[in-house]
């Protein structure tokens, strides 16, 4: 391919292509990957260009650019992982700091896949060495911890009304939740930061819908309150700068739930496919939501305390005496070291892939059972960070009676039990709309939203070398960017209003043609004479695209046909008669021959200013003139059937005309 090209040129080309990458287009990204693959000898230059591009491109284009990076390192590998790995921390963190939460989520997801081998690859090594990834993760964890703290603090203020406000926004489109309700209007897309990182109700939706969600899942949130780090880049610095406060000082249950959630989350992050973990998390989050919403009755609250205490005991191996219920038999406790993803937990968990198994897990109908199931495995020794004195909640168990595979259902049932308010459902539905690619897909970036747009870089020049470089993405301008296809002839139209209109006209043309084909079966057809130069130069031979009238409705057309008939006789025309005798006869009135003209509308040669009456053809203008002078009957009708003939002719003419207009 471009063997002879200097690196600079390749890099320049690559740069230009990157600059046209504005959306997450699978074609463009895979094309850029192909180019990278074919130019491994210029890997350094390309990596440099890519790096700079990610650095300099506006935030809304960072994701596609990073997807290119991801795709390249996964699909091409070695030289690029080396070159790109060098500054990966800067590349990633720079981008991360400038994008919104939604994109961060995707980045988290991507980062997670970098720690794993390329799916389907024989190479067991991760995409990037862990030494490269770890600093990024650490930084993110710190940032996230800070976020949680801030959010907790904020949460305590937000309280019920905030929840209530989220309620009406139960829509599948997360962006709709943009509504700037005061406590939540934090991020541009995913307003409440707590929904991203916080332990409340929101993430559970995500877990349900997308178990692989790494942002919350991948990085264990350390329970220990860390000092705020990394806040400047965040768009909501104030969130992080706020000191931590217990969400609800009235009862430590909140803290415990919080901790449990953290633990569960970190565990879950290490094994996103484990449904039992997910369910536990969901339940905890639901519980937390319920607690926060303060909709629990005192009895329920007490039950919840008991349960939490029990769980806490299970998880952390320590428990505080609970007034209402004794701690249960400790199950081998599980805790995840806060900082690193605990790989060792994996065998412990049932790596059930997806929803189907949720059912069975849920069939236990008991949070404790679920957790027990999930934890019947050795785990790291418990780390008890804080002393807890927690009561146990009972209602949690009883209130998750029949969980379906869908968290929405679960929450609904909670809601019906009065445990959860409707607010909790909102995020669930909302988060469904995200549907980011499962991390397991080989190149996640190329999948989502990979709808090609016409706005593609077209850098092809009429130079042999330029022509040889494959640009498969450009082919989409021939196909995908014109999705509206005629099923009869394959012609494609843009999806725009104009394209639709063109297609409508086009289909109209097919329709008329079919009608005329049926008609023409009766009369013989023949080849027409070719047009002469002048006519050819002036012709605009596109019968289908020429709008016959501005009005497209049949009614309008019929009306037009009528007015057409009444209009200037000069516009009247008839097909050139096929009868040679008639074809050679002049107009009986003026004795002049008829002018033959190609007519696009009827796709035929016609005599303009002509009309057939009886079996003679007149100039329409002559005829109307004579008629004006001589009354209704045209002069010099030599045929005896003049009146009948005329009537018939008029009828013929009208239908003919209507046909002509339609045609």
């Amino acid at each position: 391919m471009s063997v002879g090209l200097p690196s600079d040129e390749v890099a320049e080309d690559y740069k230009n292509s990157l600059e046209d990458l504005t959306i997450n287009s699978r074609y463009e990204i895979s094309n850029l990957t192909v180019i990278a693959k074919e130019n491994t000898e210029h890997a350094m230059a390309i990596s440099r260009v890519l790096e700079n591009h990610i650095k300099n491109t506006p935030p809304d284009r960072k994701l596609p650019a990073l997807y290119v990076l991801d795709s390249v390192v996964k699909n091409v590998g070695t030289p690029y992982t080396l070159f790109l790995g060098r500054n990966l921390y800067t590349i990633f963190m720079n981008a991360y700091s400038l994008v919104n939460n939604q994109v961060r989520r995707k980045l988290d997801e991507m980062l997670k896949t970098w720690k794993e081998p390329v799916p389907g690859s024989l190479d067991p090594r991760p995409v990037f060495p862990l030494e490269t990834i770890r600093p990024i993760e650490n930084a993110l964890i710190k940032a996230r911890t800070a976020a949680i703290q801030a959010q907790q603090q904020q949460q305590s203020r937000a309280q019920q009304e905030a929840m209530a406000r989220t309620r009406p926004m139960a829509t599948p489109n997360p962006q709709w939740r943009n509504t700037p309700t005061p406590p939540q209007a934090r991020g541009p897309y995913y307003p409440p930061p707590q929904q991203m990182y916080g332990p409340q109700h929101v993430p559970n939706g995500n877990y349900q819908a997308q178990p692989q969600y790494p942002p919350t899942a991948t990085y264990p949130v350390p329970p220990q309150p860390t000092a705020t780090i990394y806040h400047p880049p965040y768009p909501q610095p104030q969130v992080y700068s706020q000191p931590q406060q217990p969400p609800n000082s009235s009862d430590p249950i909140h803290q415990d739930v919080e901790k449990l959630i953290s633990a569960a989350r970190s565990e879950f992050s290490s094994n996103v496919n484990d449904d039992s973990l997910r369910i536990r998390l969901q339940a905890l989050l639901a519980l937390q939501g319920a607690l926060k919403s303060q909709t629990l009755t005192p009895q329920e609250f007490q039950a919840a305390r008991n349960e939490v205490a029990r769980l806490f005991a299970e998880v952390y191996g320590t428990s505080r005496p609970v007034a209402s219920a004794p701690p249960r038999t400790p199950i081998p406790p599980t805790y995840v070291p806060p900082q690193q993803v605990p790989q060792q937990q994996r065998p412990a968990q049932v790596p059930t892939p997806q929803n189907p198994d949720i059912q069975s897990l849920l069939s236990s109908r008991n949070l404790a059972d679920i957790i027990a199931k999930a934890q019947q495995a050795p785990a790291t020794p418990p780390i008890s960070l804080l002393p807890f004195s927690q009561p146990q909640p009972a209602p949690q168990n009883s209130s998750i009676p029949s969980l379906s595979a869908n968290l929405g259902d679960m929450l609904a049932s909670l809601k019906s039990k009065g445990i959860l308010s409707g607010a909790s459902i909102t995020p669930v539905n909302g988060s469904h709309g995200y549907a980011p690619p499962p991390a397991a897909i080989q190149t996640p970036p190329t999948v989502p939203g990979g709808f090609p747009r016409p706005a593609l870089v077209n850098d092809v020049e009429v130079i042999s070398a330029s022509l040889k470089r494959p640009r498969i993405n450009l082919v989409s301008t021939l196909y995908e960017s014109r999705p509206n296809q005629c099923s009869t002839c394959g012609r494609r139209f843009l999806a725009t209003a104009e394209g639709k209109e063109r297609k409508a006209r086009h289909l109209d043309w097919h329709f008329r043609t079919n009608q005329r084909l049926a008609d023409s079966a009766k009369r013989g057809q023949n080849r027409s004479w070719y047009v002469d130069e002048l006519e050819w130069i002036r012709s605009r031979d596109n019968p289908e695209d020429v709008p016959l009238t501005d009005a497209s409705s049949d009614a309008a057309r019929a009306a037009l046909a009528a007015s057409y008939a009444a209009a200037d006789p000069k516009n009247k025309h008839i097909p050139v008669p096929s009868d040679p005798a008639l074809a050679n006869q002049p107009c009986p009135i003026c004795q002049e021959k008829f002018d033959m003209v190609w007519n696009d509308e009827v796709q035929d040669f016609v005599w303009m200013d002509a009309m057939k009456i009886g079996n003679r053809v007149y100039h329409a203008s002559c005829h109307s003139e004579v008629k004006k002078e001589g009354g209704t009957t045209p002069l010099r009708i030599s045929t005896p059937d003049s009146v009948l003939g005329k009537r018939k002719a008029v009828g013929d003419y009208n239908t003919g005309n209507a046909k002509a207009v339609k045609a």
Partner: protein
Amino acid sequence: MSLPGLDLSAPVETVVTPTVHELKEQTEWRFEVAYGTKVEVRLLSGTAELFGTELPIKQSYTFTGTKAAIYTWHGCRIEVVGDCQVDYIAEETPMMIYANLHFALENLRDRANSEGIDGPRVLIVGSENAGKTSLVKVLTAYATKVGRQPVVVNLDTKEGMLSIPGTLSATTFTSVIDVENGWGSSPMNGPSQVPVKLPLVYYIGLANPEERTLIYKPVVTRLALSVMNRLQDDGEAKETGVIIDTPGIISQGKGGYEMIQHIVSEFSVSAVVVLGSERLYSDMLRRFNGQKTGTGETIAVVKVDKSGGCVDRDEAYLQQFRQFQIREYFFGDANTTLSPHTQQIDFHQLTIYKLAEPIDDLLKSLMPGDVTEDSTSAIFDKVRPSPQMQNAILTIVNAHPEDTQENIRDASVMGFIYVADVDEKKNKLKVLAPVGGRLPNKAIIWGSWPEGISDLM
């Protein structure tokens, strides 16, 4: 004598099981169908295109006398009913380069649009059977696909574009190219499933343009003039530019290069695309690279690969092809049956010019040095119908019967008639004309190409 419903002689319908081909992305199914056999092709899923023209899903296309390829960018499944002479799936195609060429032209068209200049004029050169016409079709199809209106010029007299062989023609393509049948159909007085194309046709009457540059060059000039006029008159066409197909023979040597030079200057070609041949490419580079067109654009010379699917078409096939084109002119194709008209005409009603025999070298050598072919010889000889004229194709041109020979030569074609019979005793000709009615009172040219066709009627 057969009774309805009792027609035992009817051939028993053999049940043909369709073959399904799975094409991976960016591969093509190449197939050849002999004249007389039919092969039906249907796209089941995916996308597929024949020389750039997309096939819609589930639409069935019938091919006969075709050597073509169905290419897929995205992968597809096609169903084939009938026997192909040859068919195979090819994985290596130059389609990416051809598509890139289209995109490169699109760039130039966009620029033309923004700067108000003419779109690219592209000349495709290459030896015989290099796939020139196929490339022209691909470029044309892609251009129309994205809503452009390219003017396509055929300068190859071996095969006609929307006309019979022996002609040059220019057509603005605004609608899809016919998939089954070459370029489609010129206008008829009835409807057509595939929109008809309106060609402007000139007659050469020679297989080899170098044989009589005295005819070929001025007619090319005239055609170019018309095309340039069209471009000035038609904004869409101006922006899209011109795609020119050439005869392979002019890509073979010095004399031909003169012809290429002539075409380049007449159409002010801005890009010369060399198909396949390295030698031709270097010759073209030497001749045109860096040269400016009349409007000051730099002429680009590029080479693109020849498709491995190009097959040498033997003379028998080519002759069948020519006869098919003539037959199609009068009688239509499989989808449309046309009814030409026969009529008896008195000898004196026709003014027939026969292409004069070229002055052979011996004669030329006997002439004084400064006397050129131009100034001495007549282009045409006025002839009286003779039995040799039987089965010939006569060309009616838009020129008065007594016009000057140059005007008759340069006049555009109105149509063709076929001489079915010459009755010298009665001084009558029996002719087949596409259109009924008296033949227009125009000059008629009797060329040596395409050769007569004996079994037209």
